[in-house]
């Protein structure tokens, strides 16, 4: 299909793929982050995401700049460094009908913002949280981040003096209801995972390895294109079918696991490892540890739990967003204040 033919095609809400685009990217040429932005655009277009039903949220860093480059019709908020989770939580409680699409980096999430990340996971708002993980501080020119592997040297040959944080393991341990990992260069896997994340009713965490072409893409780096290609372990291939589509996905019986999501859409996992079940917490934890010990990177949908209550459910938020409640509902009456005063006279 040619570019122009793609541009003219409209989705179920009458938008073209271009409508999901944003400002021109200012990332370095070849940056993994641009591939992720493209995947977000493609996923949003395929799903027919309505621009006014989501809000883009990000922190500070190269990754956090990218929301300007996709979904240009959608409200966005570029928060302070490491504080995106709290801004997203605030927006969510004010209007839980708006789904935050959070984009962060490994510095933003694993270092300065790890506290807020941890507590966001505990709360489980309906939200997509993508970490564009390159193991390096790009905007400040190449310092290590907390996800840099011990054996992964910087461009100048230095090794990290501290061990890495595996965000997927951390999220899983904290009870994250959707844990996935992918690679920015693997659109075939990344796009359906983002689509599934949009449909998940809870916090969907996506750790996307995204090589930094300027500071962390040399052969010795464990976040480089070459390292990833050599060390990636797929436990399944992923196909996402939105609830409004009726596409029969052909898989051989016995090798496909279907994960129905709350909105009726389905995630088909074609198993490469027949024993892997992403609803099995123990198996997921083991798989993450095992692959890490083997210096491999596990990708795909690692864990999903559809039974975890969302933060809106836990807080018993009303159907009408808090932000839309009127004065009549919000301000107690004059009589109530009279009663209050009277009760404080004894």
């Amino acid at each position, binding site marked *: 299909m040619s570019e122009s033919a793609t541009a003219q095609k409209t989705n179920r809400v009458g938008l073209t793929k271009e409508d999901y685009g944003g400002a021109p990217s200012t990332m370095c040429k070849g940056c993994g982050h641009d591939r992720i932005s493209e995947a977000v655009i493609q996923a949003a277009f395929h799903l027919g995401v309505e621009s006014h039903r989501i809000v883009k949220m990000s922190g500070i860093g190269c990754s956090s700049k990218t929301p300007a480059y996709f979904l240009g019709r959608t409200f966005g908020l*570029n928060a302070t460094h490491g504080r995106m989770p709290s801004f997203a939580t*605030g*927006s*969510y409680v004010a209007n839980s009908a*708006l789904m935050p699409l959070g984009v962060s980096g490994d510095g933003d999430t694993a270092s300065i913002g790890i506290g807020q990340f941890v507590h966001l996971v505990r709360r489980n708002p309906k939200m997509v949280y993508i970490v564009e993980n390159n193991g390096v501080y790009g905007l400040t020119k190449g310092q290590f981040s907390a996800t840099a592997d011990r054996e992964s040297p910087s461009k100048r040959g230095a090794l990290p003096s501290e061990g890495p944080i595996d965000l997927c393991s951390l999220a899983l341990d904290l009870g994250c209801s959707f844990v996935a990992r992918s690679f920015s260069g693997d659109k075939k896997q990344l796009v359906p995972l983002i689509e599934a994340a949009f449909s998940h009713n809870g916090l969907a965490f996506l750790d996307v390895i995204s090589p930094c072409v300027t500071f962390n893409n040399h052969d010795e780096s464990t976040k480089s294109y070459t390292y990833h290609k050599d060390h990636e372990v797929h436990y399944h291939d992923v196909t996402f079918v939105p609830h409004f589509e009726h596409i029969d996905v052909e898989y051989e019986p016995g090798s496909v696991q279907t994960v129905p999501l709350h909105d009726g859409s389905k995630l088909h996992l074609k198993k490469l490892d027949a024993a892997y079940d992403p609803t099995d917490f123990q198996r997921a934890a083991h798989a993450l540890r095992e692959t890490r010990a083997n210096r491999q990177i596990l990708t795909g949908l690692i864990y999903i739990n559809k039974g975890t209550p969302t933060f809106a459910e836990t807080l018993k*938020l009303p159907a009408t967003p808090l932000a839309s409640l009127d004065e009549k509902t919000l301000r107690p009456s004059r009589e109530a204040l009279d009663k209050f005063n009277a009760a404080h006279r004894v």
Partner: protein
Amino acid sequence: MSKSVVNDFTLNIATPNGTGSQTSNTIIFRALYHMGIAAAAKNLFPSNIQGLPTWFSIRVSAGGWQARAEQCEILLTLNPATWNQDIANHPRGGVIVDNTDYKIPESRFEGYVRYSVPFESLALKHLRDAKLRPKLKNLIYVGVVAQLFGIEEESVQATIRAMFANKQELFDVNWEACKIGIDYAKENLKKQDPYRFARANQTAGKILIDGNDACGLGAVYGGCTAFTWYPITPASSLGEAVIEFFRKYRTEKDGTRNYAVVQAEDELAAIGMVLGAGWAGARAATSTSGPGISLMGENFGYGYYAEIPAVVFDVQRVGPSTGLPTRTQQSDLLLVAFHSHGDTSFPMLIPANAAECFEFAWRAFDVADRYQTPVVVMSDLDLGMNTWVSEPLVYPDRPFDRGKILTPEKLAQLEKWGRYKDVDGDGIPYRSIAGRTQDSRFSYFTRGSGHDENAVYSESDQVYARNLDRLARKIRGTVQVLPEPVLAGKGNAEVGIIAFGSTDHAVREALAANETAADYLRLRAYPFHDSVGEFIAGHDRVVVIEQNQQGQMAQLLRMALPEHAPKIESITYYGGLPLSAAFVARALNGTLAKV
């Protein structure tokens, strides 16, 4: 016995923290209220849950003054750890009620009127239930005080009933314990001192409330729906009050909550959530104290620059650092006024009493929405945590002002909307809110980095400077809606006094007793109203009285009104105790004596 002293003395009760003495102290204070006496209660407590010393002073005065008295006439020394110091500090000629069981040497009571009560023995003898005994034994001193100094039994009973929600069983056990003290005093103690309480008419219409409860209720009346907070003394009870009032006033019959409370992981997250919720169109607030304000710094600047409404309650305590967490001060003024890096300015509303806590709390939401910026209500520990005899809370006199929120109709009127465009010349732009419409012309990208009128990233020097100037103009405009200062006096005295917040009580009391005729202007907000400059201009000498070392309000005044700077003098107290009228009078006389 000398001539009796009626309703003009102070009772100081020393007990160990966490032993239930708070309930007993409250019963005495509230029973006095029941008798029509507007007592002033100051709880001097440690940063500790159990064991460290605490003092509760109850002051009664002809004027019903609410400020702290520096000395007490009657000391109840019921803490084995502090009696030595308590007695040493107690002025000779005063009254001491002591615990016989502590076996304090007789010689220590020379020159005092002593009432010795074997509290432990009485408790062991009369309170048979060993489980309840620790809780009830403090009621015995309530009875002793009531009998010795004339708190009417009817008032004690009514107070116990009210405090225990009219539950007969609870009333019975508490009253019985209280009666042990009454009976002991009747039979064993002969009145030798002149002090007594008598029915008065100081409380008509007034209520009993602390500032934190009043702020909490004000937030609910102000339409707050998202309250995100991190516990910290002395602001914790404000957060708890909001939760209580949300439950009471905002819960639907089916359990649906028209509110959200998030106990955040820290103050950075608390303010982040407030800004996120404010950005998405809710009225949101947080409560904290100095250390929390410090942590919120970066996001204060974000709120200022990205123009997001937020309400913050700062219940000030003693800094720097952890400081004295359970002592009071007015020392966050400079911090808040220019919080965060870069050029910023934050409006402050400064209540002086519980009624204003309520009023300024709901008004703060209007200011924040109208000016799209973080706004801080500056309370303090004395105001927030002590119970005051206050004017009743007054129902808001105006509907919500949600400010310039862009509607489809307004969008159609505006030739070209830009999120940060100054359409009306007041520096306040129109804001659109996510989720309110499907029209993508409404949407924009909010950022803390440089941006132009259309919210597009910009590093242009001119765009940046223009934006910053508009922001400064916008914040200056808040004086139009912030509470105006209050003037006491004719305005033509030689000396002008300026004070603000909870010290108002001590200042008014000192001025009422002082022969020096001075005008008194009570500030209620920052930035300063024009009348503040006029007040200073109209007086030969101006003295600013405040509770911090650096004279922070005086500094703010000198900065805002440099032409008057040389004549602004400072009186400061920063020891952490609530200000007393005696201190103000001494300091004022000292300052004015200098030429």
